Structures are given as C-alpha cells and as structure tokens.
C-alpha cells in the first residue's frame, strides 16, 4: 500500500487499519489524539471517584462505581487502539505523568457537592457524547471501533446524571440551589470541552481531510448548546448565560462569548485541580509498581515450572 491507496481508501470512506501504509503525520496525529482521549478517560475518574464513598445511598454508590469503572474501561480501550499504531501503553502513561501529553481541561475543575456528580453526567458526558458519536466514523478502524463501544456506554452515564438531578430538583430548596450552583460552575467549562474556536484551530482542516474529525469544534459546540437548552428547561435550571437565546433566522441558539483565556490557562496547567490530578495519577502509578513487578515475577516463575515439568515427562 502507498499514499495513493491510502488516499483512495479515505476517499471511499473506508477504514485505515493498523498494518496499512499511512503518512507519518496521520500516524502521529492519530496517536496523539487517541492518547489524549485515553488520558482524559483515566484522569476523568477522579472528580467523580471522589464522591463514591460519600454518595447518599447504596444505589447511588453502585451507580457511581459502575460509571467510574466504565471510564477506566474507556481509557483502556483507547490505549489498546493507540498500541495498534506502535505506541506503548507504559510510555503513554509516563508522558501523561510527566505533563508531556494533555488531557481534557474539564477534569481540572473540583467537584464541590454531590450535585456536581449529576451535572457531570448530564453536561460533561453529554458534551463527550456530542464529540464522540461522529468519531465512530473516524477513518482509523481501531479508534472508530473503540468509539462505538464507548458511545454505547456513555448513554447510561448521561441518563444517570440527569435522573440524579431530577431527583434533587424534587427535593428541598437547598437541594435545588445546589443543582443550580453546580450548573453555574460547569456550564462554561463544558462548552470549552469542544476546543478552541474554528478560527484558532489550525489542525482542524487536515484532520477533516483525513476524516479523523467529522465536524469542526464550533459545529459540535452549537449542537451541544441546542441540545442542552430544552433539557435545562425540563429540569428547571437556568443556564448561566444572559446572551443565550433562540435565533429563528439561524435556527440555532445564540450564546455568549466564551472566556478563551480561561481555557488556555487551564490547558497550560494552571487550572484549579491540575496539580492534584497529576499527582494522584503519579502516586497510583508508583503505588502499583510493586504489584506489577510481583505479578510479572510470579508469571515468570510459573512459566519456568511448567517448562521444567514438561522436560521431566519421560518421552
């Protein structure tokens, strides 16, 4: 296979598979995107994981545990896809820990109350779904297949969050205020999840040409806003944007200017939780090292024992 075959495959809307020839840039972009996505799933366990022991009922604990476990699974599906391109899982983890690869800025915000768990499910997983559904048709086969698996599981994440919020909204005045406060804090960071505006997203054109990306950041952001407005209404909360209104001409909602300097700040490491998230990940890696080594030593011993047994069996 060569460049011509690669381009023809993309043009025909067929998938590129790991052993196919691909341009270096495609491979590099794909590894970076998949790794960043995997890191986001792994770091994304922390904000909600912090609430597992404090969830108010056994049912909510079980739900949250299952959801966080799913996110771990998503990370592993994605590391698996990255490895088909020649990347090494351990190396990717080291890049994350050393701050050489990024993860989604959204996970650098704190989860202050249990309502945050609901709002993360509704808005953060909701935004992730908007981003991920088109990626099920990404041109790289293993990534697209991982995304299909992930999208199937995300719908549970969003619905459990929304149901949690509906329950709180039927509760006391204080609980309703808690939900509104969480919405106020998470709305803008959720909009930032779609990345910088198209005009400042230099890689978008190439990614669209390679069909790694199917829609621009601004298109997906608009779709998310349009989907969220009626959901907020049904819930009885106000989205914290005075400029948010229906534009009959565009047939979309207009919304206010996003504080891009905040996104830049958080991406470059200066968000409220960046240091803690990375420190936790680093500690988990260090604390797990002896387990990984012991398991490897045990496996090697058993391999030797089996080999010896085989030799001892008389011919």
């Amino acid at each position: 296979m060569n460049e011509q075959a690669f381009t023809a495959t993309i043009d025909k809307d067929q998938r590129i598979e790991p052993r196919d020839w691909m341009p270096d840039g495609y491979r590099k972009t794909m590894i970076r995107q998949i790794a960043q996505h995997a890191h986001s799933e792994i770091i994304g366990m922390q904000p909600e994981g912090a609430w597992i022991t404090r969830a108010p009922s056994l049912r909510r604990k079980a739900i949250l545990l299952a959801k966080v476990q799913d996110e771990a699974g998503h990370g592993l599906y994605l590391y698996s896809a990255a490895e088909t391109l020649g990347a090494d899982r351990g190396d990717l983890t080291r890049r994350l820990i050393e701050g050489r690869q990024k993860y989604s800025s959204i996970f650098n915000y704190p989860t202050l109350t249990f309502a945050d768990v609901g709002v993360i499910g509704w808005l953060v997983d909701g935004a992730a779904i908007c981003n991920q559904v088109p990626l099920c048709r990404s041109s790289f086969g293993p990534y697209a297949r991982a995304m299909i698996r992930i999208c199937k599981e995300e719908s549970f994440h969003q619905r459990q969050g929304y149901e949690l919020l509906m329950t709180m909204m039927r509760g006391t005045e204080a609980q309703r205020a808690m939900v509104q406060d969480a919405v106020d804090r998470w709305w803008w960071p959720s909009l930032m999840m779609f990345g910088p505006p198209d005009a400042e997203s230099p890689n978008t054109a190439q990614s669209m040409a390679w069909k790694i990306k199917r829609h621009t950041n601004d298109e997906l952001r608009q779709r998310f806003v349009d989907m969220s407005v009626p959901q907020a209404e049904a819930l009885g909360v106000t989205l914290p944007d005075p400029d948010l209104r229906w534009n009959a001409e565009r047939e979309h909602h207009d919304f206010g200017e996003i504080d891009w300097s905040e996104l830049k700040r958080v991406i470059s490491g200066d968000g409220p939780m960046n240091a803690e998230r990375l420190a936790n990940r680093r500690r988990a890696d260090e604390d797990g090292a002896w387990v990984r080594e012991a398991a490897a030593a045990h496996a090697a011993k058993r391999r030797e024992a089996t080999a010896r047994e085989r030799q001892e069996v008389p011919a």
Partner: protein
Amino acid sequence: MSGEVKHEWPLFEVFVRAKRGLNHVHVGSLRAADHEMALHHARDLYTRRNEGVSIWVVRSDDVVASGPDDKDAFFAPSGDKVYRHPTHYAIPDSVPHI
C-alpha cells in the same frame, strides 16, 4: 530503581463470543502478566454488561497475520474462479428448490 524503564506486561488480544452459536470475535487488546490474568482482565474490561458468554485470550506476539501487501497472493485468486459461486450456473426458473 527510579529512572529505570518500568516493567511492561505483555500484550494479549481478546476474542469474545457474544452468544451461543456465534464465533468468537476480536474486540481489542490488554496487558497482563500471564494468560490467567489476561482472562480476568478481559472479563472486567470487555464483558461488563451482556457482551459475551466466552472469552479467548492470545498473546499478541503469537499472532501471525497476512499483510496488506500480500493482498494479491492471498485474496486475488478467488476473483477469477467464478465457478466457485452458485450464481455461475444457469438453472431454468421452472426448476424448484435449487
């Protein structure tokens, strides 16, 4: 100890039988110290819901695969052996059940 490249478990490919009567299908890979651990991890990672009734794990370095460039040698001959396909044979419409 620190600064050293950390130990990496080998890679395993995972195949899941979605339900009785179907083939095992490749679903992805994972890292594990040995086959037994690979099976446990596969269960946790790839069958958290109703995805399967049986799992195979195979060490990735034991898999031998045809390459995309082998395409002609491996797969082209089937194209010119049209007589291998039932539609190659003309049977009058009046003949039933064939």
